[in-house]
């Protein structure tokens, strides 16, 4: 099983994400944003949190135009798996891989704390290690995590059971309390909270471990 973690100038959760993948049994390649191709045989791409390109213009907007993101788009169009966390979620929406956009937090403040997340669906490679309705504790750390989608997009996400996680107490104004969503083929997850920061006893919580473990269960060679 191989995972690729993309590194942009300004990424700061790339190493944590790599460690979480490794602990779940993945071999991890770190891939620089200027590379135009993913390594051969990558099973899943991780787009990490941070402040790619200093959040200039809009969070994730410049990163979405980088050479490696074209390769990530191709990977997902071929049915490949990907997960974007925090800035990675913003980047995936900017590429158009996931619908909607992330706006400035409604309270205007950067928020860094552990929040309650409700697992809305266990029907994905990312969430099958949880039960729908489970409430897990995962840290958030963002200034622009206020998920927005128009009514038609929101209805589609709900009808297709593509809302992966919601906040138990909405911290940022996200429409429908949405914290994470899935692509139509359920193989791409974008989420603002950081499961890779709740994946080791030393983190003070391990509720994120099940996400990486579930992925390794799905992607392990038969």
């Amino acid at each position, binding site marked *: 099983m191989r995972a690729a973690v993309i590194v942009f100038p300004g990424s700061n959760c790339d190493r944590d994400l790599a460690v979480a993948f490794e602990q779940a049994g993945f071999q991890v390649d770190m891939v620089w944003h200027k590379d135009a191709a993913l390594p051969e045989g990558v099973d899943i791409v991780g787009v990490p949190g941070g402040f790619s390109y200093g959040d200039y*213009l809009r969070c994730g907007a410049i990163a979405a135009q980088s050479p490696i993101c074209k390769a990530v788009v191709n990977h997902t169009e071929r049915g490949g798996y990907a997960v974007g966390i925090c800035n990675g979620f913003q980047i995936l929406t900017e590429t158009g891989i996931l619908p*909607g*956009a992330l*706006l*400035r937090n409604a309270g205007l403040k950067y928020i860094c704390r552990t929040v309650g997340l409700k697992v809305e669906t266990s029907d994905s490679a990312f969430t099958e290690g949880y039960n729908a309705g489970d409430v897990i504790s995962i840290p958030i750390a963002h200034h622009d995590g206020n998920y927005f989608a*128009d009514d038609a997009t929101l209805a589609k996400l709900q009808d297709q059971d593509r809302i992966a996680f919601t906040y138990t107490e909405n911290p940022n104004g996200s429409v429908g309390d949405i914290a994470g969503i899935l692509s139509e083929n359920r193989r791409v997850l974008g989420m603002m909270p950081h499961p890779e920061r709740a994946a080791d006893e030393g983190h003070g919580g391990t509720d994120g471990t099940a996400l990486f473990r579930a992925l390794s269960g799905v992607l392990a060679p038969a």
Partner: protein
Amino acid sequence: MKARVHVMLKNGVLDPQGEAVRHALGAMGFDQVEGVRQGKVIDLELAEGATEADITEMCEKLLANTVIERYEIELV
């Protein structure tokens, strides 16, 4: 050739920064302010031969996120 692109959040998309500015103006005594929307202005210096269609493409692909923003192009 120069162009100026105005990028604004679409109507109906909450603008918490504009709202904070409105609050601040109200607190300063500017009671006549009923609403504030904050946007961006991007000035482009373009080589001869650039067309408005080129600028539109720049807006659609990068300068604005049309999920949440609208843009206006002004040739100056």
